[in-house]
C-alpha cells in the first residue's frame, strides 16, 4: 500500500455525521435537474381533468359545448376504464353536521374509522382529582404547497404496457393503482420518479389519480400525454391536512401528577376515506404525548363530509392532536398552580413506563434534559418575568414566550412495517462504483445523500463512490413509500444491512481483507463480477427483536423509536393590528444520531417554518365545499420576511436499530411550533387561543369575545 492510499483510509473514517454536500445539489443549482414538466416526448398531447363543480350530486349526463372541434380531443370517462374504477363513491360540510347524521353519506353514521384506547379507568378517578380541566381545540386544513405542482407523463403501447414518469413520493403506490386500473399484470406497468419539487405528504397518494388520468388518455389516444396541474388546480383538487377538533378532560392530583386524561380526537376525512384511518391512528397514538398517566381514554374518529378528501401531510395527524394536548397542558398546569415546565417535569414518561397504547418505553428518554437545555437556550425564565413586567406597562405591544414538549414515532405505526416488508439492494457497477437501489424518493429531504453516506460508511468507502439509483419500478425493489419519517431509520437501516452483507460477501470470497483502499475494493468487486456475473445484495425488513403490536386490540409497540423534542417560541402580539410575530424560535431535539448536520438542520428549519405558517397564516377559505383562495396570492405561506431565527440543536442518543444510530426526523418539526406559539400568545395576552390558524382576524374576534364591553 502506498502512502497516498494509506492517507485515504485515514480520511474515510466516517461519512456519517459529516456535512456531505447534497448528491444532486449541483444539478439543482445549475437548472439541469429534470422535473416532470421538463420532460417532453415526441407527439405528446396535453391532458386536463374536468371535475364536478358541486360538492354532492349525481352525474346524469355529460354535455359537450357547441363550437368546439371535439373530434380533435381525446376524452376519457369512467366508461373507458378497462380495469377497476376503484374510487368508491360514498352536502355535509362540517364534522358537526357529519356527526349529526342529518345526511348520511358514509355507512350508517358518517364515520370512516374510529379507535378506542383505554388504560386504567378514567371514570373511576374524577372524584379524587385535585383539579379537573376541560378544553376544546381546533385546527384548520393546510395545503402542502410544494412549489412544484403535481404532474405526470404517461405512455402506453399496443402490448398493454403502461409507463408513467412523474412527481411523486411513492412509486409503488402508483404502480399498484395502474395495474388495477388497466387490469394488467404488474410487469406491464413501469413508474419512474422524476426530480420532485417537494412533497410533504401531498405526493403520497394523490399522484396515483393523476397517473391514472394521464395513462387513460395516453391509452385511448395512442400518444404520450402530459398532465401537469397549474397552481389553482393543484390547490383545489389535491388532498390537504385534516382539520381536527380535540376535546380534553384532564384530572390532576394534589401533587401535580396526571390522574386521568380523557381525549376525544375527531378529524374531517372529506368525501372519500383515502388515508384517513391511518392519519387518525397516528394522531390518536400521539394524543397523550410524552407523558405518563395511569388512566387514559382516547376516542379517535375520522368522519365523512363533502369536503375535498383530506390526506397525508407531514406529521400525519400528530400535529393536530399534539397541538391540542400541549396547549391544554399549559392550562392544566396553571389550574394545578404549577409553572408549565414544572408540571411537565412531574409527568414526563420515563423509561420503563407504559404509554397510552401499552408500549413499555425501552429507549432512554431525556425529556428533562431537553427541556433544561431549551429553556436555557431561549432564556425562557428571564424573559417570562421580563415580559410580564413590560406587558403591565404596554397596552398595544404584548410579548410572550411559550413552549411545547412532544415526541414523534418513526416509521409506519404498529405492524405497518412488517406488512410493508420493504426491500432494498446494493449492487456493484461495471464502472467500479456501488449503487444503492431503493424506491424511496428524493423529494428535497436528502434521501440520495444520506443513503450514499450510510452505504459508504458500511462499505468503508467515500460518498462519491456510491451512486443512488433513480426510483424506477423496473429496476429498484419496493422499499416502501417515502412517508412516516421512515426513509432514514427504516430504509436506511436496510441499506446499512445490505452494505455490510455486500462487504462480507467480498470478504468470504477471499477478495477483500479487513483493511482495504478504495482501489482494492473496486478490484474486489470487479473480480467478483468476473467470477459470478454480478454482485447484488438485497436486504428485507425484519422487525427489531422484541417489537410487538396487536392489530386487533390496537395495543403494543406503536413505533420502534420516537424522536423527542422541546420547542420554544417567543412572540410579539400587536393589539392594534392583532398581528402575531414570532421573534425567536429554539428547537431542541433528540433524533438518535444525526447523519448529515446541514440536511438534518434543514429538515427541522423547514418543518418549523411550515408549522409557523399553519399556526398563524395558512387559512383555507371554503365555499360550498370548495377551496376558493386557491392561489399563492391569498393563501399565505411564510416568506423570508415572516420568520424568526430558527435555532436548531440536537442531542444525540444513538438508536441501535437505526443506521449509524439514526431515528426518523422529517415529521417531528411539524408537531411542536403551533402549540409553542399559542402558549406564547396566551402568555402575552392572557387569552386562551385554541383555534388554529390564529390570523389577525381570529385574534381580534377572540379579543372581542374576551372583552364584551369593549375598550
Amino acid at each position, binding site marked *: 500500500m502506498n502512502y497516498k492510499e494509506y492517507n485515504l483510509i485515514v480520511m474515510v473514517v466516517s461519512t456519517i455525521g459529516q456535512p456531505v454536500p447534497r448528491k444532486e445539489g449541483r444539478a439543482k443549482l445549475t437548472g439541469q435537474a429534470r422535473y416532470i414538466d421538463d420532460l417532453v416526448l415526441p407527439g405528446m398531447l396535453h391532458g386536463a381533468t374536468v371535475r364536478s363543480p358541486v360538492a354532492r350530486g349525481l352525474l346524469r349526463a355529460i354535455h359537450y359545448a357547441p363550437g368546439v372541434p371535439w373530434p380533435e380531443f381525446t376524452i376519457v370517462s369512467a366508461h373507458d376504464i378497462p380495469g377497476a374504477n376503484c374510487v368508491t363513491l360514498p352536502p355535509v360540510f362540517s364534522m358537526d353536521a357529519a356527526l349529526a347524521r342529518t345526511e348520511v353519506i358514509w355507512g350508517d353514521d358518517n364515520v370512516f374509522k374510529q379507535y378506542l384506547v383505554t388504560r386504567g379507568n378514567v371514570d373511576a378517578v374524577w372524584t379524587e382529582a385535585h383539579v379537573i380541566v376541560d378544553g376544546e381545540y381546533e385546527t384548520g386544513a393546510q395545503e402542502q404547497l410544494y412549489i412544484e405542482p403535481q404532474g405526470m407523463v404517461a405512455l402506453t403501447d399496443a402490448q398493454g404496457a403502461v409507463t408513467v414518469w412523474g412527481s411523486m413520493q411513492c412509486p409503488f403506490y402508483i404502480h399498484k393503482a395502474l395495474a388495477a386500473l388497466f387490469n394488467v399484470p404488474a410487469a406491464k406497468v413501469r413508474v419512474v420518479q422524476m426530480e420532485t*419539487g417537494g412533497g410533504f405528504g401531498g405526493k403520497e397518494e394523490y399522484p396515483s389519480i393523476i397517473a391514472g388520468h394521464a395513462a387513460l388518455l395516453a391509452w385511448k389516444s395512442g400518444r404520450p400525454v402530459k398532465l401537469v396541474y397549474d397552481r389553482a388546480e393543484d390547490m383545489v383538487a389535491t388532498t390537504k391536512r385534516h382539520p381536527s377538533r380535540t376535546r380534553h378532560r384532564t384530572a390532576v392530583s394534589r401533587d401535580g401528577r396526571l390522574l386521568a386524561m380523557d381525549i376525544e380526537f375527531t378529524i374531517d376525512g372529506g368525501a372519500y376515506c383515502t388515508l384517513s384511518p391511518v392519519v387518525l391512528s397516528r394522531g390518536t397514538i400521539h394524543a397523550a404525548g410524552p407523558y405518563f398517566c395511569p388512566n387514559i381514554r382516547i376516542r379517535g374518529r375520522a368522519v365523512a363530509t363533502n369536503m375535498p378528501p383530506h390526506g397525508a401531510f407531514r406529521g400525519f395527524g400528530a400535529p393536530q392532536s399534539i397541538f391540542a394536548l400541549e396547549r391544554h397542558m399549559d392550562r392544566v398546569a396553571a389550574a394545578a398552580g404549577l409553572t408549565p415546565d414544572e408540571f411537565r417535569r412531574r409527568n414526563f414518561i420515563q423509561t420503563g413506563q407504559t404509554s397510552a397504547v401499552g408500549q413499555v418505553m425501552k429507549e432512554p428518554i431525556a425529556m428533562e434534559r431537553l427541556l433544561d437545555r431549551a429553556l436555557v437556550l431561549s432564556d425562557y425564565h428571564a424573559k417570562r418575568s421580563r415580559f410580564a413586567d413590560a406587558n403591565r406597562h404596554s397596552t398595544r405591544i404584548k410579548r410572550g414566550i411559550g413552549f411545547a414538549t412532544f415526541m414523534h414515532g418513526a416509521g409506519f405505526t404498529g405492524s405497518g412495517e412488517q406488512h410493508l416488508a420493504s426491500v432494498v439492494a446494493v449492487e456493484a457497477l461495471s464502472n467500479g462504483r456501488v449503487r444503492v437501489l431503493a424506491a424511496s424518493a428524493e423529494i428535497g429531504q436528502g434521501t440520495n445523500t444520506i443513503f450514499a453516506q450510510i452505504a459508504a460508511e458500511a462499505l468503508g468507502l467515500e460518498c462519491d463512490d456510491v451512486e443512488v439509483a433513480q426510483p424506477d419500478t423496473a429496476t429498484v425493489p419496493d422499499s416502501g413509500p417515502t412517508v412516516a419519517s421512515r426513509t432514514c431509520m427504516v430504509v436506511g437501516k436496510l441499506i446499512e444491512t445490505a452494505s455490510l452483507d455486500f462487504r462480507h460477501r467480498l470478504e468470504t470470497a477471499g477478495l477483500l481483507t479487513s483493511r482495504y483502499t478504495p482501489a482494492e475494493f473496486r478490484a474486489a468487486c470487479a473480480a467478483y463480477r468476473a467470477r459470478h456475473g454480478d454482485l447484488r445484495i438485497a436486504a428485507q425488513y425484519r422487525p427489531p427483536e422484541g417489537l410487538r403490536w396487536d392489530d386487533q386490540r390496537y395495543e403494543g409497540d406503536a413505533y420502534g423509536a420516537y424522536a423527542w423534542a422541546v420547542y420554544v417560541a417567543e412572540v410579539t402580539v400587536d393589539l392594534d393590528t392583532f398581528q402575531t410575530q414570532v421573534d425567536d424560535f429554539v428547537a431542541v431535539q433528540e433524533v438518535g444520531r444525526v447523519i448529515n448536520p446541514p440536511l438534518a438542520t434543514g429538515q427541522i*428549519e423547514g418543518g418549523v417554518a411550515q408549522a409557523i405558517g399553519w399556526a398563524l397564516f395558512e387559512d383555507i377559505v371554503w365555499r360550498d365545499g370548495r377551496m376558493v383562495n386557491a392561489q399563492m396570492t391569498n393563501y399565505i405561506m411564510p416568506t423570508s420576511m415572516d420568520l424568526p431565527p430558527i435555532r436548531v440543536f440536537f442531542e444525540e442518543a444513538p438508536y441501535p436499530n437505526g443506521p449509524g444510530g439514526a431515528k426518523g426526523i422529517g415529521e417531528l418539526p411539524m408537531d411542536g411550533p403551533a402549540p409553542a406559539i399559542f402558549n406564547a400568545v396566551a402568555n402575552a395576552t392572557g387569552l386562551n387561543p385554541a383555534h388554529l390558524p390564529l390570523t389577525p382576524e381570529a385574534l381580534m374576534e377572540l379579543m372581542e369575545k374576551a372583552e364584551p364591553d369593549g375598550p
Partner: protein
Amino acid sequence: MDRSGMNVRVMCRVNGANVTIEAHPMMRLLDALRSKLRLTGTKEGCGEGECGACAVLVDGDLVNSCLFPLLHAEGTAITTIEGVAAGGRLHAVQEAFLACGGAQCGICTPGMVLAAITLLERNPNPTEAEVKAGLAGNLCRCTGYMRIFEAVVSACRR
C-alpha cells in the same frame, strides 16, 4: 384556433447568445424560454408572480418570467439559471448554496439563486434585514430560508 398569423419575431440575447424566437407576442417569457429554447431550468410555481420560481434576469433586473410577455424581451439581454455557471464553474452563490444546504427540493432554487446574485450585485454586504427583503419575492417551502440566508452571507465572504 390557429394564431400563427399573429406571431412576431423577437430577437434578444439569452445567456450570451443571440436568439430569435417566433411566437405570439403575449406568450409568457417563461414559456418561450422553456418550450422554444428548451431552457427548462426556469420553473413555474404559481403563474401569477407570487413565488419567484420563474425569476430570470432581464437587462440585469430580476423579473418573474410568468408575468413578462415575450414582446417585451425584444432587444434585451436575458440570463437564466443555465447561464449562471459560466464554463461549468459554479458561481460563488451556487457554491455557497451547495455548501450551506440552501437547496432542498430544488424547484425554487433557480429563481432563488438569481435573486441572491442580484441582491449581492447591488449590495455586496447586505444586513440580515436586507437579505430577507432581497429574497422576499422568492418562496421556498422546504428550507424555512435559514440555510439560504446562511448561503448568501457565506457568498459575500467568497
